[in-house]
């Protein structure tokens, strides 16, 4: 092989190919469905409880933090624990989607280099994997809501919609971040740190009202709004219209950036991983 000095300017590639990748990827659900399940199974292989370890570790965390922080923050447990449970589960979902998004293409290196598949398959795989984890985690809410006599009404359907909107954003982010991380390998740890920091700035463990006059900290925080569209209906505080507007707008912006990046750099991903 001859080593030559040449510029590596990305070439504009067909919009058609990018769209086709997205369409074919979404339709290959029997492929990413399997791969997503396989990820979960491999993580808990040969353990007695299998994926229900996901449920148990989340339950332990909610129990521990709930009892400790309700005292620390001087809140009634029957208000605080359900708030924390829903918030933490939502946060786990969001944070895992973002962290996995970084590895969407890097982690699929073997497959990308050996078989021709739509690249979006690898992103749907991580979205699906995280939806499975979320489903396992939701089981925790049953005893929590029963114990604290919380009723769930039809408005909980808005929470489901909210979770789906988060999943959609997870997909968009998986394409965009996955691509950037394949090229710049320093980005995953940067993102990891930011997500960790965001956890402490976002009202997950504390209520928004605790911010008092500093409520703007939550208002400008996209994590807060995505969390709120799932959390508020489940806690019976109705439909958070402002947060929905914010979240939908953020999705549109995220979608535009993602599509732009994907059209321009899709063909380079196989070279980068």
């Amino acid at each position, binding site marked *: *092989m*001859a*080593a*030559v*000095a*040449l*510029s*590596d300017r990305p*070439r504009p*590639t067909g919009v058609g190919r990018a769209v086709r990748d997205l369409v074919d990827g979404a339709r290959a659900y*029997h*492929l990413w469905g*399997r791969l997503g399940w*396989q990820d979960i*199974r*491999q993580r808990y*292989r*040969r353990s007695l409880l299998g994926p229900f370890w996901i449920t148990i570790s989340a339950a332990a965390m909610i129990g521990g933090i709930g009892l400790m922080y309700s005292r620390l923050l001087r809140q009634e447990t029957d208000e605080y624990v359900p708030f924390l449970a829903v918030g933490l589960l939502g946060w786990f979902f969001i944070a895992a989607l973002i962290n996995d998004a970084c590895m969407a293409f890097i982690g699929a290196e*073997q*497959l*990308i*280099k*050996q*078989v*021709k*598949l739509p690249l979006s398959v690898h992103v749907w795989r991580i979205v699906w994997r995280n939806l499975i984890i979320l489903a396992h985690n939701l089981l925790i809410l049953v005893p929590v809501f029963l114990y604290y006599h919380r009723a769930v009404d039809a408005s909980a359907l808005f929470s489901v919609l909210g979770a789906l909107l988060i999943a959609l954003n997870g997909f968009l982010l998986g394409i965009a971040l996955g691509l950037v991380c394949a*090229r*710049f*390998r*320093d*980005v995953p740890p*940067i993102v990891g740190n930011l997500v960790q920091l965001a956890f402490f700035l976002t009202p997950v463990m504390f209520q928004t009202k605790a911010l008092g006059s500093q409520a703007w900290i939550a208002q400008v925080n996209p994590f807060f709004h995505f969390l709120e569209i799932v959390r508020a209906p489940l806690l019976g505080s109705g439909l958070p219209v402002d947060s929905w507007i914010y979240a939908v707008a953020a999705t549109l912006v995220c979608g535009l950036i993602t599509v732009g990046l994907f059209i321009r750099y899709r*063909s380079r991903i*196989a*070279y980068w991983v």
Partner: protein
Amino acid sequence: MAHICADGISVEFPIWSPSRRSLKTAVLRATTGGRLARETSTRVMIQALCDLSFEFSRGDRVGLVGHNGSGKTTLLRVLTGIYEPVRGRLDVAGRVSSLLDLSLGMDHEGTGYENIVLRGVLMGLSPSAIESKIGEIAEFSELDDYLSMPIRTYSSGMLLRLAFAVSTAIAPEILLLDEWLSVGDASFRDKAERRLLQMIESSAIVVLASHDVSLIRRFCSRTLHLEHGRILADQAAAS
């Protein structure tokens, strides 16, 4: 109608040392102008394939020959559709199947049967299409009851048998092979070879990359000799 037409295709790999891949360097480059300018102007690219033009049509049995690193595997990956050429035009008509990595995507905790399905789906089959093939694949692999066991319990020979049985279960229009596949013990090897030959016969176009001259002579009607990513010779094989 199976057909491959390449017109001046090139493939280049950018080479980044760890510092090249890093964001820090990219940021510094943007902010410090002169200091790193020397580095930026000499980004190293490996030219893996350079300006290749060829045409394969129905009935062609092409042998790819050349030294290590001459671009054989890269060309197979380009034909598979994994690397899109950075320059030139490539048209591939026909369903391509490439036997580049037999044991790709196997789930070691899954049973033999589950892996047949998984592998089939990776090859682009629908689950129902695989279901209809499963009996034949199981029979060919001769693994019998082992197919209900997790494949981590298999020996490496058994693994290859399973992988081979699945990978060769459907005849593609365009078959790409990286080296001849030889699996299993003596009796299985004969059987595998017969199956591979059958597959080659039923494919419209076959491209086989190999170092084995006698093999190329035996199977190929045409050889494409690559050297440093360029075509050195494209000729009918001497028979």
